């Protein structure tokens, strides 16, 4: 999948995260802001990269501002931002690229 326009999903509320995506420069450019970066930074990075891999996104600038989100929330926000950038809201690949 190709990021078509900048998009974001999520909030800065507790247990959530705010994910922003925009077109990359030939690679995944990941930035993370989290109060628990020392404890969970690697895990959050792993979830973000896995989710992008499932979606087939290889070229993106992605920023995550974490407020204590569970893995399932991080996945949901990354997917939410990516599909918003594609402007796709129907016929989504539940159980396929979204998993």
């Amino acid at each position, binding site marked *: 999948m190709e990021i078509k326009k900048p998009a974001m*999903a*999520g909030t800065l*509320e*507790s*247990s*959530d995260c705010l994910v922003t995506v925009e077109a990359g420069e030939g690679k995944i450019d990941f930035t993370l802001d989290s109060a628990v970066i020392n404890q969970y930074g690697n895990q959050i990075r792993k979830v973000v990269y896995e989710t992008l891999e499932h979606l087939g996104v290889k070229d993106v600038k992605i920023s995550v501002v974490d407020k204590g*989100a*569970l*893995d*399932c*929330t991080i*996945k*949901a*926000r990354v*997917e*939410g931002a990516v*599909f*918003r950038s594609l402007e796709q*809201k*129907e*016929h*989504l690949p*539940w*159980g396929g690229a*979204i*998993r």
Partner: protein
Amino acid sequence: MNPNKKRLRRTMMFLNAQKPGLIKDPYIYKPDSIMLDLEDAVAENQKDAARFSLYHALQEIDYRGVERVVRINALDTPYWKEDIRCSVAGGCDAIRIPKTESANDVKIVESAVEFAEKEFGRPQGSVLIMAAIESARGVMKALDICEASDRLFGIALSGGDYTKDLQTHITGTGIELMGARQNMVIAARAAGVQCFDTVYTDLNNMDGFRQDVQNIHLMGFDGKSIINPRQIQIVHDIFTPSEKDIIFAEKVVREIDTKKAQGIGVFTVDGKMIDIAFYDGAKRTIELAKASGVYKGDL
């Protein structure tokens, strides 16, 4: 028949599917069901994001036996079809249809659910349906709605929209809801499905809430929609048979079984006249006690 169709549903707690902080651990409060809301609680520009949140919550959070019902958007919106695909793919237990006004509304959703079960490889018939009734027309069509699908396990009154349609408002006394409540319970009982009452929104009036729950319990409802964990224990206390009720029900069942064998139709238990008409009610009390986890007898 799906074995979950008649499960215990004293409390159905509404949760905004778009809020991770709400949907990550509601099982700790032990409601019988949670209602993951894609409809009114979710802002128009967050409908898409709420589905991703819902899908992964359904897939990854262990709700520890709490039933997971999803309230989809209404059939006159562009959202409901994708809501159903997402919910069924995620593994929800049931779909709640808002603003149901006819048997056809239920059949339309039934068809989409069936299609989604095939698309996502879920067993046919595994996803149940319930219908929320929110208008005068819906109340008048309650029996048709109850009988529209084998998947339908119950109907629920949505008091806010219903009172608007009736050109009145929620007073806290229940007067404005009396006709709808009575009509819906009768329709549900006639069709053999469950019936659930509307939410009570004044969280600062717990005495009023308790009175409301007592009233709908006496009217025959199976449970109540709730909006806060503080309301759960009150509903469960009122809807769970007391020890006195259980002991009496056991006596009634045992005495009717014994007396029937002796050819006696009418007799007394604890000074009360009893005949066969009391049998089903007593059995139901024991079944409810079992489902609520408070029965220790051997019937």
